[in-house]
């Protein structure tokens, strides 16, 4: 029971008053952030990065805060999905299928309650999984040499590109743009400044907080302002936020199954909460929907995706912490923050920073519990946030972003760059390019080049090292599969399209 012992020590760390406060702030802020249109966890965390750096907050507390925002936002998101039928992120689309019909027929209270309960179940199952799987994976990951890392990063790129957008090719091109941005600055291997064009401010490379906030938050501001008509009336009268014992029992096994599905999918790079929630929903529909009530307000159809997407969010932390390779946009941002603090997540992270890792895990147990006890009685209060008019909310998002960046760097150049990335993000969204691969590549680009450099210096310049071990070949196989499957899908679609055009 080594893990158990470490976990107990983690609890000792997480139950320190300051860390409890940080968990509380994280999950509360996460709930609000997830609920509001246009913010989302990636922006919330990106905006907090310069602030936490400037304040010199302890890295453990920072990690707890960011994780709290990450899973708290997942829950907040389901509130607006159920009440407004506006899923803030794709991972809540499956929740809308039954959640919104429930709200429309006056059962918003039970829908929100089961969503809180399912999120708690999903989060808890995932934390248990994280506790057992992460150390095992970390032990195994020690066998990863630089060549393996190089190919693993490649695999992460192809997976995220394949899964994050409608078009695989656009995901890959977005990855390329991120890699280009990543090469800006002084090259670590040779000391040559690349793509700086003589500007000293580019020598350290681009500040990824500036890029992330620009690409996501500022472009979202432009998107929101483009459609100046506001969303429909919000009904904030919820009734009793509770479920009956019978309803709870009917959801129980579905929640457990969905949590396991969600966790396992979350661990895969690139797959994440969206696929997890749809898989869980489809599985439950197949297994339990005997009367065909799914889709018309069945409470089990809310419980399954909610449990799955929360579990996936925790699962997504595994590749980030044990391999140092994040599988999603938000975990890439968290990794970027950790790297900036000279903490290198990877196989040795759990050994070297075991206290930090286990405190994080314990804080996630506590945070999930807090979300449950906070949300059942207080959800009525939270939904009042949805009443903030757009003409206040939208400039507020912009001004928090600009204020945070300027307060941290006092640099006009950063504000200009952020505005430029805002425009880039807007154009990319308008042309169906996914944004997450850009951030992932920006954070992983330098690591990719360093791995390649190390692999080559170990092999004395022989490129064959990239194909030298069974492990690296297996990883190449994964790259091939993750690239071929979407290509075959595209070709099939194109053929179908041709057929239908001829007839």
């Amino acid at each position, binding site marked *: 029971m080594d893990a158990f012992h470490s976990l107990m020590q983690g609890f000792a760390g997480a139950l320190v008053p300051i860390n409890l406060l940080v968990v509380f702030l994280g999950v509360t802020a996460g709930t609000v952030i997830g609920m509001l249109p246009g913010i989302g966890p990636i922006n919330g965390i990106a905006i907090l990065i310069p*602030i936490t750096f*400037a*304040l010199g907050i302890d890295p453990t507390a920072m990690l707890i805060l960011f994780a709290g925002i990450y899973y708290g936002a997942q829950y907040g998101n389901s509130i607006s999905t159920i009440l407004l039928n506006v899923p803030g992120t794709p991972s809540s689309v499956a929740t809308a299928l039954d959640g919104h019909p429930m709200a429309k027929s006056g059962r918003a209270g039970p829908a929100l309650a089961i969503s809180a309960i399912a999120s708690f179940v999903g989060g808890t199952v995932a934390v248990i999984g994280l506790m057992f799987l992460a150390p095992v994976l970390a032990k195994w990951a020690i066998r990863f040499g630089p060549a393996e890392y190089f190919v693993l990063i490649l695999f992460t790129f192809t997976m995220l590109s394949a899964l994050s957008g409608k078009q695989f*090719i*656009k995901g*890959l*091109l977005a990855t*390329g743009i991120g*890699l*280009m941005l990543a*090469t800006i600055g002084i*090259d670590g*291997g*040779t*000391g*040559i400044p*690349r*793509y700086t064009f003589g500007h000293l401010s580019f020598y350290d490379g681009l500040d990824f907080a500036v890029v992330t906030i620009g690409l996501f938050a*500022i472009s979202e501001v*432009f998107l929101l*302002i*483009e*459609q*100046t008509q506001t969303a429909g009336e919000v009904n904030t009268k919820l009734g009793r936020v509770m479920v009956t014992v019978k309803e709870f029992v009917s959801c129980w096994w579905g929640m457990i199954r969905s949590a396991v599905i969600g966790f396992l999918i979350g661990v895969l790079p690139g797959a994440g909460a969206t696929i997890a929630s749809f898989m869980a929903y489809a599985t439950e529909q197949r297994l339990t929907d005997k009367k065909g009530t799914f889709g018309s307000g069945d409470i089990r159809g809310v419980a399954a995706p909610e449990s799955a997407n929360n579990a996936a969010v925790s699962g997504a932390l595994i590749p980030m912490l044990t391999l140092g390779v994040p599988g999603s946009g938000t975990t890439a941002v968290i990794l970027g923050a950790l790297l900036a603090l000279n903490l290198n997540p990877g196989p040795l992270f759990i050994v070297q920073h075991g206290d930090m890792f286990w405190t994080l895990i314990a804080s996630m147990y506590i945070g999930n519990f807090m979300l449950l006890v906070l949300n059942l009685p207080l959800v009525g209060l939270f939904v009042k946030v949805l009443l903030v*008019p*757009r*003409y*206040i909310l*939208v*400039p*507020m998002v*912009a*001004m928090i972003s*600009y*204020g*945070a960046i*300027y*307060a*941290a760097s*006092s640099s*006009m150049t950063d*504000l*200009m760059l952020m*505005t430029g990335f*805002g425009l880039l993000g*807007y154009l990319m969204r*308008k*042309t*169906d*390019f996914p944004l997450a691969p850009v951030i992932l590549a920006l954070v992983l680009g330098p690591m*990719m*080049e360093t791995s*390649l*450099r190390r692999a*080559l*210096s170990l092999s*004395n*310049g022989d490129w064959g090292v990239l194909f030298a071990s069974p492990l690296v070949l297996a990883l190449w196989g994964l790259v091939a599969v993750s690239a071929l499957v979407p290509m075959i899908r595209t070709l099939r679609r*194109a053929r179908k*399209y041709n057929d239908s055009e001829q007839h």
Partner: protein
Amino acid sequence: MSDRIVAVFLLLLAAAFGIQAWAYVPIGFTDHLGARVFPLAVALFMLPLALVLFFGRHSAGVWPSVRAWRVVLLALSVLVVYALVIESVGFIIATTAVFIVYGMLYGARWWKALIAGVIAAIVLYSLFVLALDMYLPLGSFFEELF
């Protein structure tokens, strides 16, 4: 159509990126990778993809209306001006101005947007400067006042 334009842009970008990479020759340094291989590889990765995007089959896509473009351009220029003047006019006035313009884009009454802007600017200033002990410019107007 828009995909074709993007493809041409990316093609040119990748080509320029690759040509520039060629110049990064390390001096008297024996490193197996060097500084140019990685960016060159990125350029070579993007060129064929951009070509596929150009020749591929495309959906028409939803392009914003002229009115939407105007609104977005206005919102963008406001932020550019904001970045240019924040140091001279200060955070509070610049932030209030953004609230007024954005508020009016949403059709809010100007005085409502003004009130919201002043309150938000003061709250954010207090949060960043007083509570978090970071720096935001107060601007010459307020500096003379105090």
